[in-house]
């Protein structure tokens, strides 16, 4: 139904498999859930023997974060391939900015997940992955290292929001231009 109005101006977009597109949209949902819920959960009363308000939100945050990290690793191969073959854009400058934008967002996402996990590891709080698997406590409790990784986690998340804004802005720009660039994330490849 939706035909490209200017797509003839661009070369054929690199279509992605259903699995990769599914992972992309799943990670989008996870990232936005993590962002919005983290702002709220940090306003909850501090944890203590009697205060349990933060237990469920933090466990869920860690579970979704770890799952997102694994999802990103699973998508890494496809991402690198797309990064090299980026062929939907005819403008070399646009190709370069897209590569930098996608690459930096991928790196910051992975970094954000990793620093969150490290911060949690040094906090002394255990992690039970989806209430099924107790992850081993491999690090000794350390307030300094917890604070250090927590700061890195926080600042990388602010940077991530900036990159997401640019990414969505670019996606909207290409959609409004109907140049076929966003099709790779919306449409099936012929191989599907």
């Amino acid at each position, binding site marked *: 139904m939706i035909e490209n109005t200017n797509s003839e101006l661009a070369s054929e977009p690199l279509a992605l498999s259903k699995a990769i597109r599914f992972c992309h949209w799943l990670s989008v949902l996870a990232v936005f859930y993590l962002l919005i819920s983290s702002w709220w959960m940090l306003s909850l009363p501090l944890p203590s023997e009697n205060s349990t308000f933060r237990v469920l939100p933090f466990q869920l945050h860690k579970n979704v974060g770890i799952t997102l990290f694994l999802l990103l690793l699973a998508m890494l191969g496809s991402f690198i391939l797309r990064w090299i073959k980026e062929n939907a854009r005819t403008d070399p400058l646009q190709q370069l900015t897209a590569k930098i934008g996608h690459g930096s967002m991928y790196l910051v996402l992975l970094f954000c997940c990793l620093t969150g996990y490290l911060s949690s590891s040094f906090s002394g709080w255990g992690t039970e992955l989806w209430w099924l698997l107790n992850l081993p406590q491999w690090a000794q409790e350390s307030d300094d290292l917890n604070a250090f990784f927590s700061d890195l986690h926080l600042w990388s998340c602010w940077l991530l929001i900036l990159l997401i804004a640019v990414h969505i802005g670019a996606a*909207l720009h290409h959609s409004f231009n109907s140049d076929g660039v966003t099709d790779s994330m919306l449409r099936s490849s012929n191989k599907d």
Partner: protein
Amino acid sequence: MPEHYIDQNVAVASRLLIVLSILFGVLFFASNSNELLKQGVLTTDAFAALQAEADCRADELEEEGISLRECELMLVQVEIALESSPDWFRSVQQILSASGIAAALLSIGLALNLSANSGSSSRFSLRILVWVLGGLVVLDSVMFIAALQTGPLLRAQYLWPLLLWFFIHLSLALGARTISKNINDKLSYPAGKF
């Protein structure tokens, strides 16, 4: 206006509808997921266990980078949520936010299907999308009415975002309906039959 311009306008409008439905679907999903979590966590039992006294250890305050007063107010915020809401509010909010999550996911799925397919399959997706977006408008209205029954402190938190969602979903629903109608009219009266 020449025929191909009208076709092009419908194609551009459809593309905008797809992208905006996905974008707002993701945001609505995240917002309702957080609301569902909120209603699961802020319980009277958990508050009673604290005996209305904030536990603010100096090392925790330093770690969080907050003052003693801010720590105390965190508990007050929970108290506001519990005191301002009627007994039925928590369970109703859980049902409404779970419905919001389902509707958001459905709208994202339909928008993706609309973009990926062509012909009767995408026309069917568009018709369903009109209903789902219309359902979201109704859901926003019910959420708004439910929030109206709470106290002023909670109303101040809920009403404005709900009003914003109402108009976003209304715009998308009406846009989707217009596109669907244009396509149906085009199929009913193809070029040359006039």
